[in-house]
């Protein structure tokens, strides 16, 4: 029978000889059982077929493979050396050429550079114009280094620096996970009155405008990013913090004593960042990366835009196009597409730029970026202070992990406290003794008895936690999932828990014995055969 079913399987796959088919079909005609088997096999085959989809194509597979093969030449030794020979010949030729025409190379580079740069520098306009930056966007840029590139917030630019000091920016189709409501919380804690709110809006507004000229794009998919963007980020943080510190005692309270930036100093920094007229931009084009100067006249651009807008509005009124549609038309969008992949092989005008491209992110590393010098005060020391200050914004937990038994030595009664404050990545802890002079140490047993009463009425509403053991732990849990309460109770609970465990162990042993009795029955069950 099994042999027949095996034949059925091959029959389904069309792998039988005509003779075998004839024999099998004859058997099938008089055996309903075999026909059932065939139906069953057919079903399994269909299920298999429909269960697995093809893997999506990998468009960059060849690019990666070929660049790998180029990096590591295989093949025979002559082939291995042939590029070296080529280079050697070229070097000699170049040496001769340069001997007689020393400026040749320099001129060549300069010429190429300006040709290329000129082409890509046409028509550059601010990208962020399309994004209509809100206060929250600017806040997020300051604290999370991330700016949206369009209204729909489908693309972001992320600036930052590696621990090694390399600066980088990244254009991606999805933003970092930003904790929602940070801005709201921040604003709430400031509790501004309407005058102050206006002031805050105007500060943020001025940055929104200033940031526009920091990132430029054009229809050739060129992006020009000013290195000053990195400074802006720091300046905005400093500005926001100094504003906040002056306005709210609460905020001043959570800032570390270290943060002693005086408003005039911050103003000076902000001023120097804003007035910095270094026109150097990092140009990022579909086939090259270079750093060059570019004069962007923000005022001129604004005027032009206003005129254009008015004209558009006029003509749109005639054509009855509403505001929303007009916004759509204003949209400038950077294309992140496969053409960018060429960049990887692009000639590097500046060798210290590195680029990583993925289907939804494009990251450019800039080794030793020349961030324009800003005179006084020292940006680095300010940065350290800001870092320290912003750390405090993140939530920290406050736990009382240890509570020593009262020490009634020489009539004095001390409660030892060991406080621990856990911040983002550093743990600071401090201990102190609390002296309680005229308080009797309560009887531990009576406390426990009282607590037990409390436990009996303990109601567990969460169905998922409805486990007899969870109860023991849950008692000590508060909402922040840190354990609170008197640690003595915890010790007591641990003993209870151990007892429970002991009981459990005994039950398990019993069960084991019972299973052993049942082994004869269990054995008779056949395991599934594959």
């Amino acid at each position, binding site marked *: 029978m099994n042999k027949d*079913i*095996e034949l059925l*399987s*091959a029959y389904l*796959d069309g*792998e039988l000889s005509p003779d075998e088919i004839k024999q099998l079909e004859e058997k099938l005609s008089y055996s309903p059982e075999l026909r059932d088997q065939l139906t*069953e*096999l057919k*079903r*399994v*085959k269909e*299920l*298999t*077929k*429909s*269960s*697995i989809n*093809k*893997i999506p*194509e*990998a468009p960059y*597979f*060849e690019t*990666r*493979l*070929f660049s*790998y*093969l180029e990096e590591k030449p*295989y*093949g025979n030794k002559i082939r291995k050396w042939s590029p070296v020979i080529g280079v050697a010949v070229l070097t000699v030729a170049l040496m001769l050429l340069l001997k007689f025409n020393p400026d040749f190379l320099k001129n060549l580079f300069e010429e190429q550079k300006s040709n290329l740069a000129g082409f890509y520098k046409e028509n550059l306009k601010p990208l962020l114009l399309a994004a209509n930056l809100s206060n929250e966007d600017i806040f997020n840029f300051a604290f999370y280094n991330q700016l949206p590139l369009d209204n729909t917030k489908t693309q972001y630019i992320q600036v930052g620096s590696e621990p090694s000091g390399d600066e980088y920016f990244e254009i991606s189709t999805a933003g970092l996970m930003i904790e929602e409501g940070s801005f709201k919380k921040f604003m709430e804690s400031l509790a501004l009155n309407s005058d102050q709110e206006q002031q805050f809006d105007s500060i943020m507004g001025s940055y929104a405008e200033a940031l526009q000229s920091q990132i430029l794009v054009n229809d050739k998919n060129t992006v020009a990013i000013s290195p000053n963007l990195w400074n802006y980020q720091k300046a905005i943080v400093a500005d926001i913090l100094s504003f906040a510190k002056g306005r709210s005692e609460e905020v001043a309270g959570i800032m570390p004593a270290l943060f002693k930036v005086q408003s005039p100093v911050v103003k000076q920094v902000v001023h120097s960042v804003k007035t910095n007229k270094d026109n150097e931009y990092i140009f990022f084009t579909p086939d090259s990366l270079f750093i060059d100067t570019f004069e962007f006249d923000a005022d001129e651009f604004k005027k032009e835009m206003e005129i254009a807008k008015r004209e558009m509005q006029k003509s749109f009124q005639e054509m009855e196009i509403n505001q929303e549609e007009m916004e759509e038309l204003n949209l400038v969008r950077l294309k992140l597409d496969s053409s960018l992949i060429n960049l990887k092989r692009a000639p590097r005008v500046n060798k210290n730029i590195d680029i990583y491209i993925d289907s939804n992110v494009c990251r450019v590393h800039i080794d030793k970026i020349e961030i324009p010098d800003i005179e006084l005060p020292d940006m680095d020391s300010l940065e350290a202070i800001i870092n320290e200050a912003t750390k405090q914004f993140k939530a920290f937990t406050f736990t009382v992990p240890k509570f020593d038994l009262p020490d009634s030595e020489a009539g004095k009664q001390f409660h030892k406290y060991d406080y621990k404050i856990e911040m983002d990545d550093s743990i600071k802890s401090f201990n102190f003794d609390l002296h309680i002079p005229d308080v009797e140490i309560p009887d531990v047993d009576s406390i426990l008895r009282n607590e037990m009463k409390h436990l009996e009425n303990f109601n567990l509403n969460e169905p998922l936690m409805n486990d007899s053991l969870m109860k023991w732990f849950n008692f000590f849990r508060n909402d922040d999932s840190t354990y609170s309460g008197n640690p003595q109770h915890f010790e007591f609970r641990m003993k209870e828990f151990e007892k429970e465990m002991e009981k459990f162990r005994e039950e398990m042993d019993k069960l084991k014995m019972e299973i052993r009795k049942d082994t004869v029955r269990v054995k008779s069950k056949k395991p*599934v*055969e*594959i």
Partner: protein
Amino acid sequence: MDSESKKEVLQTQPRILEINDDFSLIKRFVEGDESTFKTLVYRHKEKVRNIIYITVNRTEFVDDIAQEVFITVYKNLRHFRFESQFTTWLYRITVNKCKDHLRKMKIRSMFVPVKETEDHGYNHLNDNIDIPEIVRKSIYKLPEKLRTPLLLKDIEGFSYQEIAEAVQCEVGTVKSRIFRAREGLRNLLKPYEEELKV
């Protein structure tokens, strides 16, 4: 001689084989025209990637293994002996690389604590049951030597002969392995009988 005129010469010569079939491409590669390797990759990469995908069942490893396969092909193409189809050789390398990978993963998993599997056995209690998912999970519970022939047949549409060459065994063995795979799958799917009938 540039490649354009070389092509012309090749085209004018009487040949039994098509100019761009795998054998001619390999011959040109051996003669020094390495660009033909690219054509071979373009032509076969998707098939290779799919074989890897069905064998290792993890998308994240597919491209790395596929790259290894083509690097091996590139290194050894000079020694190709034209005795069998290029694809026979290519698929054999692919299957072997997959086996190497699975072996490596198995060894690695011995040193890594067992992860909690998603399979908690409550699938059939769910209202919207994902039948292909159930079947897929069951398929990957089959031993590799049964699973690979089954999937090469049912997903990639290989013949028994092609499977035998790829996994290096007799045609008869392929036949019985596919049959055993189907029987095993049937047993594994028994608990889901009700859901599968819908």
